[in-house]
C-alpha cells in the first residue's frame, strides 16, 4: 500500500519536475530546491517579524490597534512586511509538505537517511506552533478563535492545573501578562524551530540552505506581487463577549481546528498516531539496507577525496593506524553510510587498468565491488555484438533501471570512477559510453549527478583524462519515467558514433598497469 502511494507520488513529482525543468532549467527548479527554499522563507519570516515587532504594541489592549495602524497607515512598507510575514509562513508549510512528500516518494528516508527524516518530524511541530502562536498576537477574531480552541485543546490533556481556556473566558479574564507570554512563545518557538532545522541537516554534507539567487529573487518578487494585490488583513478586533463565527481560517496552519472543536480527543489521537507513524517510517518494511562501504588500508593513502565527495558525512579522516607512511586514513561511520558508492568513484585507487593481483580499491561497497564493476564491463562488452558497441553506466534510481540486463547498473553513476570510462574506451571494449543517471534535479544520492558532471568536465578529482574523446560519451540525466527519452538519446548517440567510426576510426590506447600509490600521487 505504502509502495503504491509512493510510486503514485513519485510519478506526480516526476511530471512536475520535468515540466519545471523544461520551463526554467534544473538549476533553478523550485522542486529541486525545496529545503533551501524552506530556509529562505524562514529568513524572510524572521526579518519581516523583527520589523513588525518594532511597531507592535504587546499589550492586549493595543495589540490589534497597533497592527491595524501600521497595516493601513503604512501599508506600503509595514503592510507589505506583514503580508510577507504571513504569506512566507504559509509558503513554508507548502514547501515543507512538498519536501516531505518528495523525499518519501523518492524513498529517501530509510537506512542512513533516517536521521534527517526523524528530525524533520519535530520541525513540523515547531513550524505549526510558530505559526499558531503568531496568529494569537494579532488579537483579531481569528486570533480569538485560535486562542480559545487551542487552549481548549490543550486543556483536554490532563497535565495543566487550571484550565488555560479560562484566560479567554470573558473580556476581563485576559491580562497583559498572559499576552506577554504569547509574545515570548512566538519568539522562543521559532528559535527552537531554527535549532531543529540545524539538527535536521547535520548528517548531510553541503546542505543546500540557500536557493540560487535567481530563484530567491523571483520568490521575493512573487511575494511582493501577491502582498500588493492581496494584502494580509485582520478580521476585526477580538471580543471575548462574542463567538468569532464565521472566521476566515488559514487552512495551511489550521486545517484540523474544526476537528478540535468537535472532538479534541480524536484530534490528539490523530496527531499522536501521525507523529509516531512518521517517525517510525524509516524502519517500516520493506527494509532494504546494503552493507556500508569498507576501507582497505593497503590501498588507501588518506587523500581524502572520498571524504570530500561523500554526500552523507559518513567518512572521516583519522590518524593512521597501520604504520604506513601516510598521515591519515579514512574511517566509515556505518550508521550514516547509505551505500551509494560515490566514495569508490572518488578513490584514486579505483583504477581498472591494474592487471596484477585482485582489483581492490581504497574504499569499496561489499555488495557492489569495484572489481565486480570491471568484471561486468567485460561481460557486457563481450556480449555486445552490435555496432557501435555501447557501455551504459546506469543508476538504480534513474531511467536506466528499466533497461535491464544491458546496463552496468550501480547505486549511483558517480560510483563509477572516470578511469572506468577511460578503460572501456581506450581498451577498445566499447565504442561509446552512456552515463545514465537520475534526473538532474532529483539525484537520489544528492550529489552524484553533480560530481559526475564535474569529473567528466575535469573540474573535480578524479578527473576524466583529457585524452578520453568526449564525443564518445553521452550523459543522460533522466528519471524512471523518462525511459523513452533515454532510448531516444541512446539511439541518436549510436547514429553519431557510427558516423564517427566512418570519419575517424577509434584510436586504441594501451595503458601500463598503474599501481595504487602511483595513482594516488
Amino acid at each position, binding site marked *: 500500500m505504502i509502495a503504491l502511494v509512493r510510486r503514485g507520488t513519485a510519478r506526480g513529482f516526476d511530471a512536475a519536475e520535468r515540466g*519545471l525543468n523544461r*520551463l*526554467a*532549467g534544473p*538549476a*533553478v527548479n*523550485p522542486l529541486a530546491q525545496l529545503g533551501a527554499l524552506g530556509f529562505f522563507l524562514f529568513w524572510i519570516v524572521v526579518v519581516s517579524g523583527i520589523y513588525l515587532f518594532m511597531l507592535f504594541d504587546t499589550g492586549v489592549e493595543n495589540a490589534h490597534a497597533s497592527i491595524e495602524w501600521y497595516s493601513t497607515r503604512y501599508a506600503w512598507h509595514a503592510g507589505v512586511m506583514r*503580508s510577507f510575514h*504571513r*504569506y512566507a509562513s*504559509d*509558503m513554508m*508549510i*507548502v514547501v515543507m509538505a512538498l519536501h516531505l512528500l518528495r523525499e518519501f516518494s523518492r524513498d529517501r528516508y530509510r537506512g542512513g537517511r533516517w536521521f534527517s527524516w526523524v528530525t524533520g518530524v519535530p520541525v513540523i511541530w515547531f513550524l505549526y506552533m510558530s505559526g499558531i502562536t503568531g496568529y494569537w498576537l494579532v488579537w483579531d477574531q*481569528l486570533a480569538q*478563535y485560535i486562542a480559545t*480552541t487551542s487552549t*481548549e485543546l490543550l*486543556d483536554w490533556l490532563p497535565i495543566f*492545573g*487550571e*484550565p488555560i*481556556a*479560562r484566560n479567554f*473566558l*470573558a473580556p*476581563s*479574564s485576559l491580562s497583559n501578562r498572559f499576552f506577554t507570554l504569547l509574545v515570548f512563545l512566538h519568539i522562543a518557538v521559532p528559535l527552537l524551530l531554527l535549532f531543529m532545522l540545524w539538527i535536521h541537516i547535520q548528517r548531510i554534507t553541503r546542505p543546500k540552505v540557500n536557493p*540560487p539567487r*535567481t*530563484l530567491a529573487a*523571483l*520568490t521575493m*518578487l*512573487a*511575494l511582493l*506581487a*501577491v502582498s500588493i*494585490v*492581496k494584502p*494580509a*488583513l485582520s*478580521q476585526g478586533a477580538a471580543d*471575548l*463577549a*462574542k*463567538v*468569532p*463565527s*464565521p*472566521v*476566515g*481560517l*488559514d*487552512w*495551511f496552519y489550521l486545517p484540523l*481546528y*474544526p476537528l478540535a*472543536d468537535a472532538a479534541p480527543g480524536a484530534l490528539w489521537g490523530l496527531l499522536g498516531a501521525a507523529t509516531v507513524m512518521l517517525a517510525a517510517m524509516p524502519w517500516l518494511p520493506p527494509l532494504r539496507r546494503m552493507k556500508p562501504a569498507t576501507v582497505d588500508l593497503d590501498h588507501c593513502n588518506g587523500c581524502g577525496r572520498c571524504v570530500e565527495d561523500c554526500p552523507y558525512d559518513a567518512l572521516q579522516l583519522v590518524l593512521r593506524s597501520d604504520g604506513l607512511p601516510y598521515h591519515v586514513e579514512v574511517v566509515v561511520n556505518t550508521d550514516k553510510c547509505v551505500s551509494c558508492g560515490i566514495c569508490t568513484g572518488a578513490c584514486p585507487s579505483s583504477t581498472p587498468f591494474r592487471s596484477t593481483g585482485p582489483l581492490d580499491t581504497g574504499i569499496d561497497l561489499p555488495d557492489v565491488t569495484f572489481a565486480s564493476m570491471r568484471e561486468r564491463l567485460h561481460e557486457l562488452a563481450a556480449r555486445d555484438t552490435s555496432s557501435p558497441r555501447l557501455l551504459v553506466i546506469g543508476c538504480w534510481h534513474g531511467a536506466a533501471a528499466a533497461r535491464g540486463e544491458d546496463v552496468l547498473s550501480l547505486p549511483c553513476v558517480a560510483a563509477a570512477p572516470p578511469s572506468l570510462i577511460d578503460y572501456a574506451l581506450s581498451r577498445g571494449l566499447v565504442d561509446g559510453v552512456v552515463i545514465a543517471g537520475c534526473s538532474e534535479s532529483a539525484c537520489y544520492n544528492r550529489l552524484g549527478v553533480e560530481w559526475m558532471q564535474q569529473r567528466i568536465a575535469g573540474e573535480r578529482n578524479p578527473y576524466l583524462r583529457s585524452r578520453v574523446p568526449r564525443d564518445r560519451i553521452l550523459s543522460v540525466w533522466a528519471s524512471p519515467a523518462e525511459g523513452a527519452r533515454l532510448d531516444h538519446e541512446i539511439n541518436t548517440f549510436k547514429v553519431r558514433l557510427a558516423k564517427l567510426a566512418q570519419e575517424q576510426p577509434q584510436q586504441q590506447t594501451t595503458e601500463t598497469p598503474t599501481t595504487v600509490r602511483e595513482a594516488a600521487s
Partner: protein
Amino acid sequence: MSLPVSIPRLIGLFAVLTAVTAFAATFSNAPAYRQIPAGTGVIKFSFSHSADRGRECRRRTPEELAKLPPNMRRPLDCPRSRRAIFAELAIDDVVVFSKELPPSGFAKDGPSQVYRRFMVAAGSHTIAARLRDTPRASGFDHERIEAVSVRPGQSLALDFRPEHGGFIWR
C-alpha cells in the same frame, strides 16, 4: 552581465512562483469557517474553586504536640486534601452538566476545576447553576437560577466566585 536563465524562462518561473504564492494567500484566510451555526450563542460554564477539607481539622493533644519539633507544633491537625465538588448546570430545566469534580493536584489539595462550552439558540433561557462544596450528602450549597437573553453570536461566561457571592456572569 549575463543572466543564468533566459528572460522568457525567468518570466515563466516567476508566473509559477506567483501562482503558488497566490494559492497560499488565498487559502490563508478562506474559506470561512463557522464555529457555531447562525442564530446561536454560547454559554461557558467554568470555575476553579476549592471545596472544604476532606475531613474536619482536629485539635492535637498536648502529648502529640510534645512529640513534634518545636517549629511544627501547630494546635490543629488539618488534612491537605479537599473534597470533590458536585456541580450541575441546567438550561431550560434540562440538566446539561452534572458531575463530581475531584480536587486537582497529586495531593488532592488543589481546586476543583471545570470548563465546558454549551451552544444555545439565541433567545431567552433559564439557566440554573448549582454547586455543592461541603460534606453534605444531598442538596446544594450554592445555586443561581436566572433567565438570560442570549443574542446570536454572544458568548456568556458563568463563573463561580465565592468572594462575589457565588455564581456570577462574566
